[in-house]
């Protein structure tokens, strides 16, 4: 079994070009386009497609258009210049490594079409609006929602194709926005988003090849954590937190904040990742500004003795780099007696009796050894 993701499903987001390729293969009309990785590529692509083209940065970050990532040009030379301007820059946190050079379509109307999962009912839901575009979510009244129960048939295109692809690809989301009506009457996908379910990677090996999950986005340390199967979010505070399970980890952060402290991170080592306490500790202690460590374990499936032994092993190799770091433990649940004894024997520390006590001590520890003014 693989590690848990708390309340999230790990999504694999495709770029516009990847999404459109999958849709086009299934018969959805998309503008003629080519991927370009250099300005000269872009010039050549524009030359093939036609003079008036759109040059679009291939990033998965939202708000790409507003960030200047989409440029309409009237010649192949200008397409090269646009590519030159976009390639190597960053949109959001994401570097622009490729641009999509596409035929500019003459549009008479913009619609919206998406298929996703409704979290309340757990059913597939088809969303449609006659008025698409970047502000579509602000026009909730114009959007129709249709539950798609098993066996339910949708007869119109491209909705039927989208639904079939949704199931075939193990998608979490397929969205065409806008789905444009051209002045010559074609219905064409101007932009498309697809998010796949990372949990379904095992049955789509070719499709997922080279695709990273959203778990691997973020800072260098967050990516390093993702590489060993840990989910880290850096928060910038001074109290490093190691806890098991997303729920307990969030509750630990909440308790620190409620008591006036500043958590340095969210790092979950629940599920099968409970054996990775040592590398997890190394990652959280490498964050700048950390001046206190709180270890909060509540073992159910994850055994406290295994997690605690990992923390202590990690600490023994790292402690010389952090000579004055206060460590506070709160340990209960599966394996707690062995775990508490390990802390006493190997670290000569007494685990706290309650989580409240451990949180208060961790905050006091950060204040006394603090890197923050």
């Amino acid at each position, binding site marked *: 079994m693989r590690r*848990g993701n708390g309340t999230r499903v790990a999504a694999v987001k495709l770029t516009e070009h990847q999404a459109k390729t999958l849709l086009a293969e299934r018969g959805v009309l998309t503008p003629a386009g080519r991927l370009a990785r250099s300005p000269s590529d872009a010039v050549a692509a524009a030359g093939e497609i036609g003079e008036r083209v759109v040059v679009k940065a291939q990033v998965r970050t939202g708000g790409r258009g507003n960030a200047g990532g989409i440029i309409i040009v009237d010649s192949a030379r200008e397409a090269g210049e646009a590519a030159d301007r976009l390639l190597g820059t960053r949109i959001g946190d994401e570097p622009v490594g490729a641009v999509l050079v596409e035929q500019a379509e003459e549009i008479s109307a913009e619609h919206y079409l998406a298929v996703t999962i409704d979290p309340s009912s757990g059913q597939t839901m088809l969303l449609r609006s006659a008025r698409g575009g970047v502000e579509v979510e602000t026009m909730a009244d114009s959007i129709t929602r249709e539950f798609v129960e098993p066996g339910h048939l949708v007869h119109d295109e491209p909705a039927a194709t989208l639904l079939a692809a949704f199931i075939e690809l193990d998608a979490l989301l397929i969205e065409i926005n806008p789905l444009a009506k051209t002045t010559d009457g074609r219905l064409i996908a101007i932009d498309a988003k697809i998010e796949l379910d990372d949990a379904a990677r095992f049955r789509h090996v070719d499709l997922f090849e080279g695709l990273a999950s959203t778990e691997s986005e973020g800072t260098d340390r967050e990516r390093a954590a993702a590489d060993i199967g840990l989910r880290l979010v850096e928060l910038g505070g001074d109290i490093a937190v190691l806890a098991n399970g997303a729920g307990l980890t969030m509750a630990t952060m909440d308790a620190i904040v409620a008591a006036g402290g500043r958590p340095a991170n969210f790092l979950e080592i629940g599920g099968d990742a409970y054996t990775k306490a040592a590398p997890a500790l190394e990652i959280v202690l490498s964050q700048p500004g950390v001046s206190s460590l709180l270890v909060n374990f509540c073992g159910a499936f994850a055994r406290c003795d295994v997690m605690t032994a990992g923390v202590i092993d990690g600490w023994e190799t790292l402690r010389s780099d952090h000579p004055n770091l206060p460590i506070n433990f709160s340990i209960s*649940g599966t394996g707690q007696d062995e775990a508490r004894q390990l802390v006493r024997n190997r670290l000569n520390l007494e685990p706290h009796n309650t989580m409240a006590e451990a949180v208060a001590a961790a905050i006091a520890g950060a204040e006394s050894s603090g890197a923050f003014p």
Partner: protein
Amino acid sequence: MIIETEHRVIVQGITGAQGTYWTEQMQAYGTTIIGGVNPRKPGIEHLGVPVFASAVEAAETLGRIDVSVLFVPPAGALAAVGDAIEAGIRLVVVLTEFIPVHDTMTMIAMANECGCRIIGPNTAGTVTPGQTFVGFMPAFDDRIFRPGRIGVVSRSGSLGTLTALELTRAGYGQSAFVGIGGDPVSGTTTLEAVAALDTHRGTDAIVIIGEIGGRKEEDAAMAVAACSKPVVSFIAGAAAPVGTRMGHAGAIIEGTTGTHSSKKAALVEAGAIVVDVPWEIPGALAVCSIGPDRKHQTEEKSTVGDTT
């Protein structure tokens, strides 16, 4: 969804390391394990119970099976649930995490069609203190779980464990712990668990342990408003950074729901007390005039009324 000693339980995936370890714990606690399933090892005996090739074959030999619990890898979970449903089992506890969400949707649709309830996936299971546990909760530690009158519904196993610990420490035993699981799509929702505990005779008050993300707590508000018993809740994630949403569709469906403030507002509006840290739960129960078990006992014995 509250599993008692008389319920007959099988373990699908009983021979693996985790299946073996937790089956032993369940047996020692009092859960009535009558058999196991491993398609590759039919005919053997493991932990004192017979192992079958399928749940269907187990049912043919063993007769009535009330509950199945799955220690099965993600790729095999859908087929295993289908097998359990075909065997006529009406409660299936799916511990497996990282099941593709389309498989989860399929198994829930199959279960609904056959009158079967799924708890999970990605749940740590259920505990009926003093009687049974099904899954991997530290039920066997009486510093954490004790028989009593508080029903707990939790998305998280670790936070559910902490909650039981804080309740027990304050003198509140538990009537039932229902882990609904951490996945966005679940066979049993918070709403359904609250409704079940509302009609459960052994339960005096309900604790909802939620988390940011999704809309299970907002949806549960309807059951809380209709509930005849006091409801106390802790929602984890007040201090968490705001997560990313899935395209425009995510924003359209979720609207303003999914955040800590939206969940808290919905539950408070429905009449629940929402606390800021887990150890405030016992105090909130006291505010609802639900006293600890020890106090009940002392009051019964005492001739002098002290109701503080």
